[in-house]
C-alpha cells in the first residue's frame, strides 16, 4: 500500500510538471536550448564515481585497520578478500542512500563481475610475470638457443648448454603432426559443413566429444596401437619422435576439425548457392568459393592447433623419452626431446640451475604461443578490412 501511495504521488507530480511545461495554446514556445545538443548516452554522474572511489579507499582503510591491528591475521590473499567484501558492503550502502533497490543490486553485481574479471587478468599476469622473471637468467644467454642440453651440466653456468635440441624436436614433431592432422581436420570440417545426413550428425557428435577427451589418452592410444605391437623389433617399437607426432595428431585433429567447421560455417550460404546456380559442381564450389572465403578462419584454426600442440605435454609422458642429446630423426628409435617435456623434466629435477633453465624454456614456449596468437589477431583484422 505504501508503495502504491508513493507511486501515486510520483504520478501526480509528473502530471503536474507536464502540465506546467505545456506551452500555452497559441503561443509559439521557443524550443529549450539544450534540445540542440545530443544527449549523452554513457554519461557517468560525478557522484557515482565518488561512490566507487570513496568505497574503495574507505574499505581499504577499514580492512587495513581491522586486519593488521585488531585481528591477528596475515596474508595477501586474506587481505584482498576482506577488502573486496568490505568494498562491496560499503558501495552497496553508499548507493542505497540515493538509489532504489534494483539500482543498488545492479551496481553491486557490476562491481562483483568487474572485480572477478580483473582477478582473472591479474592471475594471468602473475603467471606470465613469474615465469619470465625466473627464466630470464637462462634466456639472456644466446647459447641457450644454439646449444643442446647435453652441452651443459646439471649445475654448470648458463653460458653452456641450451634448448636447441628441444626446439628442433618440437618443430619436427609438431610439423609432422600438422601434416597429418590438417588434411584430416579440414576434410572432416568440409564434410560436416557441406553435406547432410545422419552420418554428419554422428561425425559431429564424435568430434565434439573428442575435443575435450584428455590428451593423455591420445598418447596412451598411440602407445598401444603403434609402439607396443612392435616393441623392440622395429625402430618405432620404442618411445620416439614419430609416436609423439602421431599422438599430437590424434589430439589435434578434432581441434582443427571443430574450429575449421566454425570458419566454414560462417561462409554465407548465399555464396554457395550462387556458385551452384552458376553451374559449378559441388567440388568446384567448395574449392573456389567456400575454402577461399573461409581462408582467414582456416588459417586461424591452423595456428591455434599449432599453439595447442607445441605446448602439449601429457601424451609426451607416455610416448616420448627424455634425452639431453640432439636428435633430428623421428624414426630411428631413439628418444627425441621437445620443449614441454624439457620444461617438465627440468622443473621436477630439483636442481636450482636446471629449474631456471626450465623456466627459460617455459619463457620460449610462452613466447611462441604469444607470437602465434598475435598472428591470429592480424588475420582477424585482415578479415574485417576485406569485408
Amino acid at each position, binding site marked *: 500500500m505504501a508503495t502504491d501511495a508513493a507511486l501515486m504521488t510520483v504520478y501526480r507530480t509528473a502530471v503536474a510538471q507536464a502540465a506546467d511545461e505545456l506551452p500555452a495554446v497559441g503561443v509559439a514556445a521557443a524550443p529549450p536550448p539544450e534540445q540542440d545538443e545530443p544527449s549523452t548516452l554513457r554519461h557517468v554522474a560525478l557522484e557515482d564515481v565518488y561512490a566507487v572511489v570513496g568505497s574503495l579507499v574507505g574499505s581499504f582503510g577499514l580492512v587495513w585497520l581491522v586486519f593488521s591491528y585488531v585481528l591477528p591475521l596475515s596474508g595477501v590473499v586474506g587481505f584482498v578478500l576482506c577488502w573486496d567484501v568490505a568494498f562491496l558492503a560499503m558501495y552497496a550502502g553508499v548507493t542505497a542512500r540515493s538509489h532504489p533497490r534494483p539500482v543498488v543490486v545492479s551496481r553491486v553485481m557490476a562491481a562483483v563481475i568487474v572485480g572477478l574479471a580483473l582477478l582473472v587478468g591479474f592471475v594471468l599476469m602473475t603467471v606470465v610475470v613469474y615465469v619470465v622473471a625466473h627464466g630470464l637468467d637462462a634466456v639472456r644467454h644466446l647459447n641457450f638457443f644454439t646449444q643442446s642440453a647435453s652441452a651443459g651440466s646439471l649445475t654448470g653456468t648458463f653460458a653452456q648448454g641450451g634448448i636447441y635440441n628441444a626446439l628442433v624436436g618440437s618443430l619436427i614433431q609438431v610439423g609432422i603432426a600438422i601434416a597429418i592432422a590438417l588434411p*584430416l581436420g579440414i576434410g572432416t570440417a568440409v564434410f560436416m559443413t557441406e553435406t547432410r545426413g545422419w552420418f554428419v550428425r554422428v561425425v559431429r557428435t564424435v568430434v565434439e566429444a573428442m575435443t575435450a577427451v584428455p590428451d593423455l589418452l591420445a598418447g596412451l592410444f598411440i602407445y598401444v596401437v603403434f609402439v607396443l605391437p612392435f616393441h623392440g623389433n622395429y625402430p618405432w617399437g620404442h618411445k620416439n619422435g614419430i609416436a609423439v607426432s602421431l599422438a599430437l595428431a590424434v589430439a589435434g585433429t578434432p581441434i582443427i576439425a571443430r574450429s575449421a567447421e566454425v570458419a566454414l560455417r560462417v561462409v554465407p550460404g548465399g555464396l554457395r548457392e550462387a556458385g551452384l546456380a552458376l553451374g559449378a559442381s559441388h567440388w568446384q564450389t567448395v574449392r573456389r568459393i567456400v575454402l577461399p572465403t573461409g581462408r582467414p578462419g582456416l588459417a586461424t584454426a591452423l595456428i591455434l592447433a599449432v599453439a595447442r600442440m607445441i605446448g602439449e605435454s601429457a601424451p609426451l609422458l607416455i610416448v616420448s623419452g627424455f634425452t639431453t642429446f640432439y636428435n633430428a630423426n623421428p624414426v630411428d628409435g631413439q628418444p627425441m626431446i621437445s620443449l614441454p617435456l624439457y620444461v617438465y623434466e627440468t622443473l621436477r629435477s630439483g636442481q636450482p640451475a636446471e629449474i631456471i633453465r626450465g623456466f627459460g624454456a617455459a619463457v620460449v614456449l610462452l613466447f611462441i604461443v604469444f607470437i602465434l596468437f598475435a598472428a591470429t589477431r592480424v588475420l582477424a583484422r585482415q578479415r574485417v578490412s576485406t569485408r
Partner: protein
Amino acid sequence: MVASAEPPNLLDSLDEPISPQATNPWGDRLFHLVVRGIAGVVLVIFGSIGVFLAYQSVPTFRRYGLSFLTQSQWNPELDKVGISSTLLGTVEVALVALVVAFPIALATSLFISEYAPLRIKGLLVALVDLMAAVPSVIYGAWGFFLLMPHATLTSRWISEYFGWIPIFKVNTDPAAAVWAQSRFVNSAFIAGLCVSMMVIPITCSVMRGVFAEAPLGEREASYALGSTKWGMIRTVVLPFGRGGIIGGTMLGLGRALGETIAVLFIISLTFNVNFHILQNGTSTISALIANDFGESTSAQLAALLTAGLVLFLMTLGVNTIAAVFITRSRSGAATEI
C-alpha cells in the same frame, strides 16, 4: 548441345525437372567419396581409442573383476590393484576446480559480453583464448612454485575456521604456533585451484559465445521496460544462455577430469581414501597413468590402460552431455547474406 534432326520440343523439356546434380557428376561423386572417407577415417580413429582401451582392459577385469573399482590401493607388487581412491581424488580435484572456476568464468564472460567497452572486446576474447592456449606445464609450474605457498596459508585458514565441516578437516592442529605445514601442501584443493586456471578459459569462451547471441530486441525490450543492467542480464541474457552455461561448465569438468601435468606437479601420489581435500596426498587417474607409465611391467601396463579406459568413459560421458547442451543452444547452421 546435341545436334539432332528434329527440333526439340521446348514444352517437353520444361516438363522434365532440371537435375540438381552438377554438370560433372563424377568429379562430385569423387569429392563426396573423399570427404566422406576422411570423416570415416577420423571416426574410425576415435572409435578405436575406446575399442583398443576396452580390449586391453579385458585381462585386468578378468583378473581383478569389480574389485578394480573398489580396491583403494595401487600396488601391483602385492597384486592389489584398484582405483577407488584414485577415482575419489579425480572427482575431488575436478569439483574443486569447478567450484572455483564456475563463478569466475561466469563473471568474466558476462564482463566481456556485457560490460567491457566495445573497443577492447576483441582483445579480451583473444586474451581468454590465449589463456586457454598457455601450456598446462606452465600452469603447473606456476601452481607449484607460486600458488602453493599462498594456497597453503589459505588451506590453513579454512581448516582453522571451517574444520568442523568434515571435508575441510585436516588431521593436525591448524591453530598451533608451529603448524604442520607439510600436512597442507600437495593437496587436492591446491591441485584443483591450479586446474581451475585451465577450466576458466574453456568455460568462459563457451558462455561468452552464447551470451553474445542473446537477441538484441529482447535486451532493448527489457531496458525499455525500465530494467537496470543487471535486471536485463538476469531476465534476458542468463535465461537465454542457460544451455551455454551448463554446456560450458560440463566441458570444463571434462577438462578438469583429464588434466595431467598440472596435477602431477602439485599432488604427491598416495592411494588412501582421503575425503579431506585440504590434506596432503591424493591421486588422480591421469596423474597415476603419467607417473607410473615409465617403469611399468606388462601386467601393470594393462592395469594402467584399464584406468585409462575408466577416465575415457568418464570424460566421454561428461563431454557428450556438454555437447548436447551446447548444440541445443546453437543458432542456424549457415549465415545468410
